[in-house]
Each structure stands twice: as structure tokens, then as C-alpha cells.
């Protein structure tokens, strides 16, 4: 009996939270128009969300690409198909690893920072303070950050994939002796702009949307104490990771299912 009571209470709690999150999202989206009038706010957030994630994304992308080149070569050379290394590296980066790994890194780097920032602003009454100054904190604080996350994510994912493909090429043709021309031409012949690149970009847009939403909501909904903010930050990373991976499965099934 106790178990069912807990289950019921848990369900109720998650539904109310989902409801709050939805209302929050609606007000964020309503606030976006006022951000566009003040590009300075957006620029500042693009800096802290995008530019500061630049390095980690580039370096991780390079290494992931290099590892893919190495592993791909070992397996493909067994079948004498090392020429298709470029296809393997590029397809896995553009379709999956670029959007997913970049989003996971983004959740860890920028998402947690957003949650902590908003949570602390709440704890130090900065948000209430703005409300009492008749300034809507959603419009001035939340929406610019949301828009910045949403815009940065596809750029970061593209960067990740591009750097990764170059990393794969460095290892594949630089170290392991795959023909450079074959690396690129096989890649170009087998990857489709519409099916692969655009779908990858759509994925990263969805992930950017969801990650920024989760990060900002957790910060805004955090219990305004040190412990509350730390828990909210953890929840951001955990929930973002779950959502990214779950959505990736759904999106992959929708996009590549008919092939």
C-alpha cells in the first residue's frame, strides 16, 4: 500500500513539475521577441554560453574524430575496406556523435553553469529584486540565455563534427596510410546533404532547445539555498543527458528509419 502511495505521490509531483516547466517554457518563448530588440543581452550570453564552450567542444571533437579514425581503420582494414574510413568517420560524427556528444558536453559545461547562475540569482533575491523593479526577469535574464543556448548548439555541433572529420583524416591518412583522396571522395559520394547534414543539424537544434530549457528551468525552480542549487545543477546534467539520449533514439528512428 505504501508503495502505491509513494508511486502516486511521485507521479503527481512529476506532473506538477512538468506543468510548471511548460508554463515556464511558454513565458520564455513569449520573452524572446523582447530579446531581439536588445541584441546586446543576447551577445553577452552567446559569449558565456557559446564562446566559452568553444574550446572544450573543439578539443573533444578532435579527439573523438581521431579515435574514430583509429578504431574504424582497425575494423575496416580487416575487410580491406579502409577506403571507406572517411564515410564511417563522417557519418557517425554528422549523424550521431556530433549532435549527441556536443550536447552532452554542452549540458555539462554551459547547462550546469546556467542552472547555478540562475539558482544563485534566485537565492540572492536578484530575480525578486528585478520583479519588484517592474522588470520581468524572464525577459531580461532567462530568454536571452535560452536563445543563446538554442543558437549556439547547432554551431557547436557542426564545429564538433567538422573538427572530428579533420581529426579522423589526420589519423587515417596521416598516420595509417589511407589514401587522402579516397577519404574525402568516398565521404562526399556517400553522405547526403539532406539526409545526413540537415538531419544532424535538426538533432542539435532539438538538443539545444531541450538542454537550455532544462538548465534554465532547474535553476529557476531551485530551492534557493546552497544545497538546493547544487541539487538543481546535478539534476540539470542528469536530466539533460537522459533527454538527449532518449530524444536521439526517437529522432534517429524518425529520420533514418526508412533507409
Amino acid at each position, binding site marked *: 500500500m505504501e508503495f502505491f502511495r509513494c508511486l502516486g505521490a511521485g507521479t503527481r509531483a512529476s506532473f506538477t513539475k512538468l506543468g510548471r516547466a511548460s508554463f515556464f517554457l511558454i513565458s520564455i518563448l513569449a520573452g524572446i521577441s523582447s530579446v531581439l530588440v536588445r541584441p546586446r543581452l543576447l551577445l553577452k550570453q*552567446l*559569449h558565456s554560453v557559446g564562446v566559452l564552450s568553444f574550446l572544450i567542444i573543439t578539443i573533444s571533437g578532435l579527439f573523438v574524430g581521431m579515435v574514430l579514425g583509429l578504431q574504424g581503420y582497425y575494423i575496416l582494414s580487416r575487410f580491406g*575496406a579502409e577506403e571507406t574510413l572517411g564515410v564511417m568517420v563522417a557519418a557517425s560524427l554528422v549523424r550521431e556523435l556530433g549532435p549527441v556528444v556536443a550536447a552532452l558536453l554542452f549540458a555539462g559545461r554551459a547547462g550546469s553553469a546556467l542552472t547555478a547562475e540562475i539558482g544563485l540569482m534566485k537565492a540572492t533575491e536578484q530575480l525578486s529584486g528585478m520583479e519588484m523593479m517592474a522588470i520581468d526577469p524572464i525577459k531580461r535574464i532567462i530568454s536571452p540565455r535560452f536563445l543563446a543556448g538554442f543558437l549556439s548548439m547547432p*554551431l557547436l555541433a*557542426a564545429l564538433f563534427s*567538422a573538427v572530428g572529420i579533420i581529426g579522423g583524416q589526420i589519423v587515417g591518412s596521416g598516420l595509417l596510410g589511407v589514401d587522402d583522396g579516397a577519404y574525402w571522395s568516398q565521404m*562526399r559520394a556517400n553522405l547526403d*546533404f539532406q539526409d545526413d*547534414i540537415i538531419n544532424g*543539424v535538426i538533432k542539435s537544434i532539438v538538443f539545444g532547445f531541450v538542454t537550455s530549457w532544462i538548465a534554465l528551468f532547474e535553476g529557476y525552480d531551485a530551492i534557493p539555498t546552497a544545497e538546493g542549487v547544487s541539487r538543481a545543477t546535478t539534476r540539470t546534467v542528469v536530466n539533460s543527458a537522459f533527454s538527449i539520449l532518449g530524444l536521439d533514439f526517437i529522432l534517429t528512428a524518425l529520420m533514418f528509419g526508412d533507409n
Partner: protein
Amino acid sequence: MPHTHTQDTLVGLFVAAGIASLFFLGLQVSNLSSFSHGNTYEITANFSNSGGLKVKSAVSAAGVKIGSVKAITFDSKTFESVVKMDIDAQYKTLPDDVTASVYTAGLLGEQYVSLDGGGSDEYLKNGSKIEITNSALVLEKALGQFLFKSAEEKKATPVDDKKGRK
């Protein structure tokens, strides 16, 4: 304020790098640069079996990719597969008596359409139909025929004969 200037610059660099990578992916990595969809003309070929050919499979001549498969439909009257292909407009001097064959790239590779031969003075134009086609080689069929043949051979040459020959 110098502070906002650096911020502007950094954000500018970030956005430029992101867009550049998108372009890189579009132009260097995918097939976007090789075909612009506007400049193509369409030809058709009927195959008795198009095998594992798919939409967007390559169409090549002498090993060079010159187009892609646009649509594959089944003609219920002739029991044939009708393959529509988009050929890049720059290859406009393909003779109209070429042979279209469905081949496989390597043993496990994808299937593609190859256009070979031909010597006519007339060229393929938009809407032309290729008359001479070779169907895809279906591995199971070929294996089946091979097994059947070897079984027949076995029947024809009794065991004693074989021994005798040795």
C-alpha cells in the same frame, strides 16, 4: 568600452567558426557540391530486375558519377522496374544507345547504375528512354543456378567415371 569590443570579437569569431563548419560539412563532406538540383535532365530505363538499387544510388559512366537515381517504380503491365535518373546537365553528349546496367560496387558494396558503350550520333535528352538494359545480378539466383548446374554435372558424370578418369 574595450570590454564589450573583445566580447563582440569573440562572439563574432565563434559564430563565424560555427557557420564555416556548417559550410565545410555541406560542401566538403556531403554531396551538396557535386550536384545542384536545378541543372539536371531526366532519363528512364526499364530493368527486368533492379535488385538493391535505391533512390539516390549513383549513376556513373566509365566509373565517374554523373547522376543519381530519382525514382524507382514498378510497371504492372510489363512486370518491369522503371528507374528514373537525374543526369547532371554538363554531361549532355551521352549517346542514346548506351547500355544501362545495375552493378554492385565491390562484393558487399552498394548497387549503382552504369552507362556503357553506345556510338550513336543522337544524344540522350530530357525524357529519353534507354532501350538496352542489363538487370542486376541477384546473388541467390546466381548461386542457385550454379548449384543446379554442378548437380546436373554430377549426375551426368557418374562416380565411377570420375574414379576412372583419375
